[in-house]
């Protein structure tokens, strides 16, 4: 019997050629994302570091105007310390940075307790019943709702409060704390807190699902051991389960917050897209907090702007210089997001290694 290699060889070679081509196509697709990311960073970075070439001077202007370049590039130290301006070379992102910072802090304050609380209820307390199933299905649907729908919800529920408080009354709720008072306008209108609450609703499903996964990863032997030592259910959760799940929860929360930080659409509909030349609570650096502690309480009810909004505003501006300012803003935003992502990855990596149950 002859070995039928000769008969099969042409087919086999062709099949291997097709296979090789397919492998290369798949490999190329994988690299495609990396290449786009590189091109994006390079093109934006290049724009962030250069001003557009000066326009040709009109022929009739005989006196050569001397360009006074205050800064060498859009992305400079001055960019961080000045407000938005009608003169592009003097514009900066001071208000936007503080607005974004406030947003992130408030969103974290709202979303972490509620998100972790929901996850704890779903994973630790509720038994596999109808309520849990309904909440779970609802969560997966909420996670798929586009951000612009949350924006509408935020506009209706927080900015206008379903029209329960008519605007001309100008209702002001004065909350009396022990040593000072806080004026809370009702409805919230276009204040920082409306934006923060909207973003909270947006990220809550993500935070809850991530926390649930982290809680599920804690082995039940830890709970059983805690019960065996006489702890109540809440003590077990509070002192054993949540600390054990903390790295996973933190990773999820940071990723969710970085998503909230980049969102512009929800804030847009809230009406935050205005020219803002002050920071929330008039706090422009850390020492202001000690000089004017009441600013911390006023800040959530101030008008605000945020990094992605500022960038959008600059993109929409017809003057060429603003496109370069937008690039500089994008570089700042991307740097912050990259840092947050790195922190999340490091936390995950570190605890993946160290925890051995």
């Amino acid at each position, binding site marked *: 019997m002859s070995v039928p290699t000769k008969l099969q060889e042409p087919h086999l070679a062709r*099949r291997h050629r097709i*296979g090789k081509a*397919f492998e290369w*196509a*798949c490999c*190329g*697709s*994988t690299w*495609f*994302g990396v290449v786009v*990311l590189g*091109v*994006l960073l390079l*093109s*934006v970075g290049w724009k962030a570091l250069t001003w557009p070439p000066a326009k040709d001077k009109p022929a009739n202007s005989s006196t050569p105007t001397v360009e006074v370049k205050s800064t060498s590039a859009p992305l400079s130290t001055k960019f961080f310390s000045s407000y938005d301006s009608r003169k592009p070379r003097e514009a900066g992102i001071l208000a936007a940075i503080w607005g974004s910072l406030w947003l992130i802090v408030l969103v974290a304050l709202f979303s972490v307790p*509620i998100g972790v*609380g929901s996850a*704890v*209820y779903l994973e630790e*307390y509720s038994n596999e019943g109808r309520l849990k199933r309904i*909440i779970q299905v*609802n969560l*997966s*649907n*909420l996670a*798929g*709702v*586009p951000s*612009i*729908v949350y924006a*509408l*919800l935020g506009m209706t*529920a927080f900015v206008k409060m379903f029209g329960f408080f008519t605007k001309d009354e100008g209702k002001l709720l004065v909350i009396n704390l022990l040593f000072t008072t806080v004026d809370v306008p009702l409805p919230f209108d276009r204040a920082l807190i409306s934006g923060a609450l909207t973003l909270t*609703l947006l990220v*809550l499903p993500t935070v809850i699902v991530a926390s649930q996964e982290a809680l599920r990863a804690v082995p039940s032997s830890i709970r059983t051991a805690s019960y065996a030592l006489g702890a109540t*259910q*809440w003590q077990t959760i509070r002192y054993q389960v949540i600390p054990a799940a903390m790295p996973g929860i933190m990773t999820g929360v940071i990723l969710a917050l*970085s*998503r909230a930080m*980049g*969102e*512009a*659409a929800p804030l*847009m*509909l809230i*009406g935050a*897209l205005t020219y803002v030349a002050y920071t929330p609570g008039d706090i422009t650096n850390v020492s202001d907090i000690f000089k004017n502690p009441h600013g911390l309480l006023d800040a959530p009810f101030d008008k605000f702007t945020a990094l*992605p909004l500022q*960038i*959008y505003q600059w*993109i929409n501006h017809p003057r060429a210089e603003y*496109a370069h300012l*937008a*690039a500089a803003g*994008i570089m700042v*935003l*991307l740097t912050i*997001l990259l840092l947050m*992502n790195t922190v999340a*990855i490091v936390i995950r990596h570190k605890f993946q290694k160290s925890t051995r149950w």
Partner: protein
Amino acid sequence: MSLANVASPLTPTKAGLRLQKQFSWARAREAGVRAMLLGCASLSLLTTLAIVYMFLTEAVYSVTPDTTAFLQDVSLWDFLTDTEWSPQFADKHFGILPLLCGTFVIAGIGSLIGLPIGLAAAIYLSEYAKPKFRRMMKPVLEVLAGIPSVVYGYFALVFVTPYVLRPIFQSMLGIDVDIFNAMSAGVVLGVMIIPTVCSLSEDALRAVPRGLREAGYALGSTKYDVSLKVVVPAAFSGIVASFLLAISRAIGETMAVCIAAGQMPRLSLNPFRSMETMTAYMVSASLGDTPAGTIEYKSLYAVGFTLFLITLGMNILANWVMNRFREVYE
């Protein structure tokens, strides 16, 4: 003598029964904490209810007597069949078709680019790539997924249109390319959905058991045959679900599309002109500071409701496909 001591806690004595009914602060705290956590968990239900209430009262039927909802002013038939969307003009038309057309043309271009590339990348990562390469690539894809959509919009406007689309289509093929065009929006949308498709499809592909692949090799298949004719069909439900979720994301995408495609509602299939999507209309309408109660303001909710129903439908379909057609392996 010790036997009685051991047995007594187990037998339900009168004292034991009374102990359960007794009030204790610890038990009260447990119940309080439980109630609070239940409150947190039901907040997500409340969110859904608020969304539904908002859309019903503002878009479909108003419950308060002195206001009207969108569909009480504009008939549903006009809304669905009118071919013009011009709420800002004196001659107002509220036909959703141009916005739907813009949305689906852009999402379609995005899907044509993003779905095959995402799937191919998933196949590579799950079937071909070495573990080290995979570990390196995963964070990169995560970063790609984490880039805000404003940035993608800017990229489309300052890079894709002038340096990719115009040289190819305008210089070489002689097709006019607007500054704002649906094509550039579609291209960046395609890039944006790659991470979603890739990671979800990869999960589905990796869930296919090794035995199936080995059976394929035993029958003399090449790696290409195994990947494409065994593993992909076996993971088909997961792949379709990832496609549906990605398309639903593409439809709901706002800022990138708003920046790159412009704000010109147009009922056409030419991707090199400016188009307006549903999301972009909502942003542009909010920019003009439309006062509450006007018909433009209410149109925001009508468009939002349409978008909500479409994306919700696609998500439900994705979940259904996932559960209905999932192959369960031992």
